[in-house]
Structures are given as structure tokens and as C-alpha cells.
């Protein structure tokens, strides 16, 4: 039924633009191209973080190994955490935000296309700033959580922590800018008839995530500002000699840090909620409850931060409150898992690679959720916190949850992004390798943790009963690494050689599948007028959605001069032919981002007594930033 898009266009990364070449990427303001940039960059950092994990696990393969030194190990585990959280999973989610949200809500672009480009460039520069030092053995070594006072000048006198504190601050700018953009996009750019309760679940979960971002990043921004002030300007926020409280950093960090967990997991939940209905041939079970539980998880996420700190001695009352709040979160999370299973129940399940990853998420995240409840109980947590049991827990959540969901999302949306399928056979190798590998890696950690092995140790003594578990974990990591190579090969190869996919290769029901693959630069030649949650299924297989309230009256009255009823767009034009104004390409966001990064990169020189260099970079960067902003804001968008 679906007409296949012009094959000459399919598979080319530049398919949705008139221009080609490097400049077209540097100056792009197209949300799909920016999404693609995010995807490539984040996958690169994912490999970097994975490589760090491989070295870490090699060092821990046997007791008292000397594969790397203590300091190198500390740099590696710090960078592994920082990279995976800030440079891999968050930007992988951002890749989907960018690529998908406008398509799913029937918009031609995001609210602020140039701000979007700015977010990406800041992310790229911040990521480089954070990552490059490891090549020179001066990478951050204070843990991804960077607890002060360890990260203060007194205990970390080198430049290592400078890269971390500045890098994170800069990445925060990127995340915040993107979040304002997507909040506005989702509130204000929805196609006619796309009410909030008709939005695809990925968009919904992303919407929640954007609020988590704008409300969770300010506390860590403040904590990082204090650390920057301490390290470069001699303030005493974390100076114990001046009477500082070591808990200040921890609280500010975890006020951010816990919502951050949901920032990492909710987009994957959203992706899975798109994949499961498609391959079960059924709408999502209990859509409303799925929305509310997502909002609940996000909201409660702000009231549980101190469960990361049960060992700091907050007192019985605080422990009780945070413990109860934490347990509450298990309820909406459990609801989501049951609803996913119910979505598949009585369906016709097709086991594509994407679907396998989605099912794996349900199975694996459940394990992470159960161990999560186990340390929501403070007395029990005192035996678990800072042991490998916790490492097992959050890897089941972040690898078994976020990464599984995102990988599923990549297999699912690859045809939309490139016009070509990823290879299913290689994908199966990837999936099974990853699935077995992750269980082999992380399941034994439950045991090594409960049998007393602390976290963040670069070596452990022989005869402690941990040898077998560690050996298994290491082999598991190698298995994941090998299967990731299958993925990389598949990903790179399928871009140009994969089987050509039509506009709706999987038979999905949401708007993004009603336009050609890859989508043209304007997305929708005509704004679609939406009258249900699965407009494409309404069109092709009305029986599938007959049970959902369509509120036809609504669809009749909202009829907008701008829109036409949802239909499949099969032909490809240029925006010019259609007279659709598109944002002009511009490098001003990049210029501004370089200014921001330059401004911050002057700071480390202050500590090395290179005042002139520091001032030159900081003032020069600030001028670039302000000049770039003025140039950007005073030039027309389209």
C-alpha cells in the first residue's frame, strides 16, 4: 500500500536537504540532520565509554591485577560514568528527541531551529573537552558524582577535575537549551487535532524528560558553580578547614542526580512504547495510565534524591521519608511494565531485532527495579550501598533499560532516518550477544556485592570469594564488546547497502510513518489534521483502533485552514516547490558555541598561573559568545 520513496534519495544522509557537503552539516538548522549528528556523535562516545569499560573489566578480571595503575583506573571509571551518562545515553535520547518529536507531533521543525543547532555544537565541544584529557592521562578522577571535598583543590590539585567541572557545566548549557526548545515545541508546534492525550508515547515521555531537565539541571549548575569558584577563585564552599559541610555537594548533586536517572530511562520507555504496539499489531495498553505513570515517575523523582545518601547519617526521620517516597516510585514503574506485557498479550508478535530489544528491556529493567526496591529500605541499603550490588542494580536499569530501549529504537527508526533497513541477521547476532553479555557481566555483580566487594576499587585481594564473579563479569563485557562490533558494522553498512524501506516499513500507526523515508526537509507537505492516537492505523486498518475514543466531533470542529486530514505522503518535493519557508542554514550557533567553550576553557589556566592566557581565552570567548548571539538574534530565521 505504501509507496516507496524515490530510491535515488533513499539512504543518502543529505536526502532531506538541497545542499550537500560538510558545510551543509556545519550550518544545518534541520532538526533531522541535527538528530543525525547527535546520533553519530553519541554512538562514538558510547564506543569510547564502552572501551573504558573493557579496560576496567580487564583490570578487575583477577585479584591484584596490574593492567592499569590506580590513577588510570580512577580516571577510567570516572570517565566511563561521565561519558555514558552525559555523552552517550542523554545525547542518544536527544538524537531521538530531535529526529522524532517534530515528526510525531506533525510539525515542520522545532520551535527554535538555531537554538537546536547551538545545543548540539555545545554538546560536541563539551564532549571533546571532557574526553581528550584521557589521552594525556589527565582525565577527571573524582568519580562521575565528583563528591566534594575530594574534588576540591586541596585533595585534587591537578587539572583533572577542572576538565570535569567545566565540561559538565558546558554540557548543562546544551541540555537546558535543548529542553526549553522541546518544551516549547511540544506545547506549541503540535499539528491541528494533536491534543496532548493523542501524542505518541515517546513524545509524552520526552515531554516529561524536558521538565526534569529544566528543573534538575539548575541545582547541579549551582553545585558546579560553587566548585568552579572554589577551584579557580578561592571560595570556601567545600573547604572543610573553613567549616564547610561535606554534605552540601552531595545534596545539590543528588537533587539533580536522581531526576537524571529518569532523564536517562524515560526516553527509552517512550521508544519501547512505540515498538511494542507496532510489532504486536495492537495499540498501547492503557495509554492514559501510561501517561500518568510517566508524569508520576518524573514528579516523584524530585522527592527521592537522598536515597543515594542513606549512609551519610541524615537521621531516622529523613531516612524514613526518602525511603517511603522511593518505594512509591515502584508503583507507577510497575504499572508501566504490566501495561507493556498487556500490550503484547493477545497480539501478533513479530520478533524483529527492535522488538527483541524492547522485550529485553521489560525483562531486564524489571530486575533493576526489584533490586532498586531492595535498597529503598535504608537498613538493608547500608549493606548494599557502594558495593557491586549497586553497580549491578543501576546497570540493569541503565544498560538493561536505557541502552536496550535506545538500541531497539535505533533498529526501529533506522529505516525512517535513512530509508534503509538495518540487517536483521547481524542484528540478531548483536542482540543475543548483548543480551547474554549483559547478564553475564552484571548478574554476578549482585553476588560479589552482597558477598562484600566494594565499588570503585582498582584491585581486590585474592581469597575474598569474589574471583569467579569478577571473571564472569569480565568475559561478559568482552561478549558485549564483540557484539557491539556487529552493531557498528551493521549500522555503517546498512546506511548505503541496507534493503530499501518504504515510508511505513513496520506497519506502525503514528504520524512519522506517513511521510517518505528519509523525511523531506519540510517533513509534512501539508500539516496533517489528527483525530486519534494512531492516525495511520485509522487510515489503513481502522479495526485496530476502533476501540479508542476518537471524539469525531472534535476532529470536525478543529478543522484548521492550515491542515488537511492525515494521509500518506508519498511524493518528495523541495520546500521551495511547496513554498514552505525553511530556516536558513547558518553557522552562527556554532560560532556562539565555540565562544562559550573558549570562554570556559580559559579557567584552568588560572590555576597554572598563566593569567594572560586565561584572560585572553575567557574575554575572547565571551566576546565571541556575545557577538555570536547578537549576530544570530538579529538575522532572520528563514
Amino acid at each position: 500500500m505504501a509507496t516507496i520513496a524515490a530510491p535515488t534519495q533513499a539512504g543518502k544522509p543529505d536526502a532531506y536537504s538541497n545542499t550537500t557537503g560538510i558545510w551543509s552539516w556545519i550550518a544545518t538548522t534541520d532538526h533531522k540532520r541535527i538528530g543525525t549528528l547527535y546520533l553519530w556523535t553519541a554512538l562514538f562516545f558510547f564506543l569510547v565509554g564502552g572501551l573504558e569499560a573493557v579496560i576496567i573489566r580487564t583490570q578487575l578480571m583477577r585479584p591484584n591485577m596490574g593492567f592499569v595503575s590506580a590513577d588510570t583506573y580512577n580516571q577510567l571509571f570516572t570517565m566511563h560514568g561521565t561519558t555514558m551518562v552525559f555523552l552517550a545515553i542523554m545525547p542518544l535520547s536527544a538524537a531521538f528527541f530531535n529526529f522524532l518529536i517534530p515528526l510525531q507531533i506533525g510539525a515542520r521543525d522545532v520551535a527554535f531551529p538555531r537554538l537546536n543547532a547551538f545545543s548540539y555544537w555545545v554538546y560536541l565541544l563539551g564532549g571533546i573537552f571532557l574526553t581528550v584529557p584521557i589521552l594525556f592521562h589527565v582525565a577527571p578522577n573524582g568519580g562521575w558524582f565528583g563528591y566534594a571535598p575530594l574534588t576540591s583543590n586541596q585533595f585534587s590539585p591537578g587539572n583533572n577535575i577542572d576538565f570535569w567541572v567545566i565540561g559538565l557545566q558546558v554540557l548543562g548549557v546544551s541540555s537546558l537549551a535543548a529542553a526549553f526548545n522541546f518544551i516549547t515545541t511540544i506545547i506549541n508546534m503540535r499539528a491541528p487535532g494533536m491534543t496532548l492525550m493523542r501524542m505518541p508515547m515517546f513524545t509524552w515521555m520526552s515531554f516529561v524528560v524536558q521538565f526534569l531537565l529544566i528543573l534538575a539541571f539548575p541545582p547541579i549548575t549551582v553545585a558546579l558553580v560553587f566548585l568552579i569558584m572554589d577551584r579557580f577563585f578561592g571560595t570556601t564552599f567545600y573547604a572543610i578547614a573553613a567549616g564547610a559541610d561535606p554534605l552540601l555537594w552531595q545534596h545539590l548533586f543528588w537533587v539533580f542526580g536522581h531526576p537524571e536517572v529518569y532523564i536517562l530511562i524515560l526516553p527509552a520507555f517512550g521508544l519501547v512504547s512505540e515498538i511494542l504496539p507496532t510489532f504486536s499489531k495492537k495499540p498501547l495498553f492503557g495509554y492514559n495510565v501510561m501517561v500518568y505513570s510517566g508524569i508520576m515517575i518524573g514528579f516523584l523523582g524530585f522527592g527521592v534524591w537522598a536515597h543515594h545518601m542513606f549512609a551519610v547519617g541524615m537521621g531516622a526521620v529523613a531516612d524514613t521519608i526518602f525511603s517511603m517516597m522511593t518505594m512509591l516510585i515502584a508503583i507507577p514503574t510497575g504499572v508501566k511494565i504490566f501495561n507493556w506485557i498487556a500490550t503484547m498479550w493477545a497480539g501478533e508478535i513479530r520478533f524483529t531485532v527492535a522488538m527483541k530489544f524492547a522485550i529485553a528491556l521489560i525483562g531486564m529493567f524489571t530486575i533493576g527495579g526489584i533490586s532498586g526496591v531492595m535498597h529503598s529500605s535504608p537498613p538493608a541499603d547500608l549493606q548494599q550501598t557502594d558495593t557491586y550490588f549497586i553497580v549491578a542494580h543501576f546497570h540493569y536499569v541503565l544498560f538493561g533499560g536505557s541502552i536496550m530501549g535506545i538500541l531497539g529504537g535505533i533498529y526501529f527508526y533506522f529505516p525512517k532516518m535513512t530509508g534503509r533497513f538495518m540487517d536483521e541477521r547481524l542484528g540478531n547476532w548483536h542482540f543475543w550477544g548483548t543480551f547474554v553479555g549483559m547478564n553475564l557481566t552484571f548478574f554476578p555483580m549482585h553476588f560479589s556485592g552482597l558477598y562484600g566487594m566494594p565499588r570503585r576499587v582498582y584491585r581486590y585481594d585474592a581469597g575474598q570469594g569474589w574471583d569467579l564473579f569478577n571473571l564472569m563479569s569480565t568475559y561478559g563485557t568482552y561478549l558485549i564488546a564483540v557484539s557491539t562490533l556487529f552493531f557498528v558494522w551493521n549500522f555503517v553498512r546498512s546506511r548505503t547497502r541496507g534493503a530499501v524501506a518504504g515510508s511505513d516499513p513496520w506497519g506502525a500507526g503514528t504520524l512519522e510513518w506517513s511521510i517518505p523515508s528519509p523525511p523531506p526537509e519540510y517533513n509534512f507537505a501539508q500539516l496533517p489534521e489528527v483525530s486519534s492516537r494512531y492516525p495511520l492505523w485509522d487510515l489503513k486498518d481502522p479495526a485496530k483502533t476502533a476501540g479508542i475514543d476518537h471524539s469525531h466531533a472534535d476532529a470536525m470542529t478543529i478543522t484548521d485552514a492550515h491542515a488537511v486530514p492525515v494521509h500518506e505522503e508519498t511524493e518528495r518535493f523541495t520546500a521551495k516547490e511547496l513554498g514552505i519557508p525553511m530556516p536558513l542554514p547558518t553557522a552562527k550557533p556554532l560560532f556562539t558555541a565555540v565562544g562559550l567553550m573558549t570562554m570556559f576553557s580559559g579557567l584552568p589556566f588560572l590555576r597554572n598561573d598563566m593569567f594572560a592566557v586565561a584572560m585572553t581565552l575567557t574575554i575572547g570567548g565571551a566576546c565571541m559568545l556575545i557577538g555570536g548571539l547578537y549576530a544570530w538574534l538579529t538575522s532572520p530565521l528563514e
Partner: protein
Amino acid sequence: MSDDAKHATETHHPTGNQYLKIAIILTVITAIEVWAYYIPALVASPLFNPALIIMSALKFAIVVLYYMHIKFDHSLFRLLFTASLILAMCTGTALMFLFGVFKL
């Protein structure tokens, strides 16, 4: 629809004279706050801090409601701002308790 919204907001906005009245009210509250600060008997009173907080909350509310037009504008803005504000106040208060600034 959008035109209606815009029209509605324009008709309900206060005028220059009302803005002036609001400015005077704000100044008077500030004057009372500072005055109270210089009366030792008042400072010693257990009601001093709560009274100051209430007065500053009042000023805060007046500026946000009238000068920032949140009273007259689209309810979306009210939702965005107050939700964040409430969360910020709750987080701040929780931190105060956790660090023993307030005691249970």
C-alpha cells in the same frame, strides 16, 4: 482563537495609574519591612521572621501577578511558573530541614 486570547488580555491589563498604585504598595511594604528591622522589640518577637517572609511573598506575588501579567495571561504560563516555583520552594525547604536550619 489566538486573536481572541490576545484581545482578552489587552482589555484586562491594568493601566498606567494602576501600575503606579502597585508601585506605591510595593514601596510601602518595603518601608514597613525596613522599619520593623529597626525596632528591637519587633525583631525579638517570634512573629518577626514569619511576618517578613509573608511580606516578601506578598511583594513577590504582586509583581508576578500584575507586572508580569500572570493574572491576565494564558493559564499555561501560570502553570509553567507556579509548578516550578512550588517545586523550587519544596526543594529549598527540604534542604533547610536536612541541614538542620529548621528543626522538626
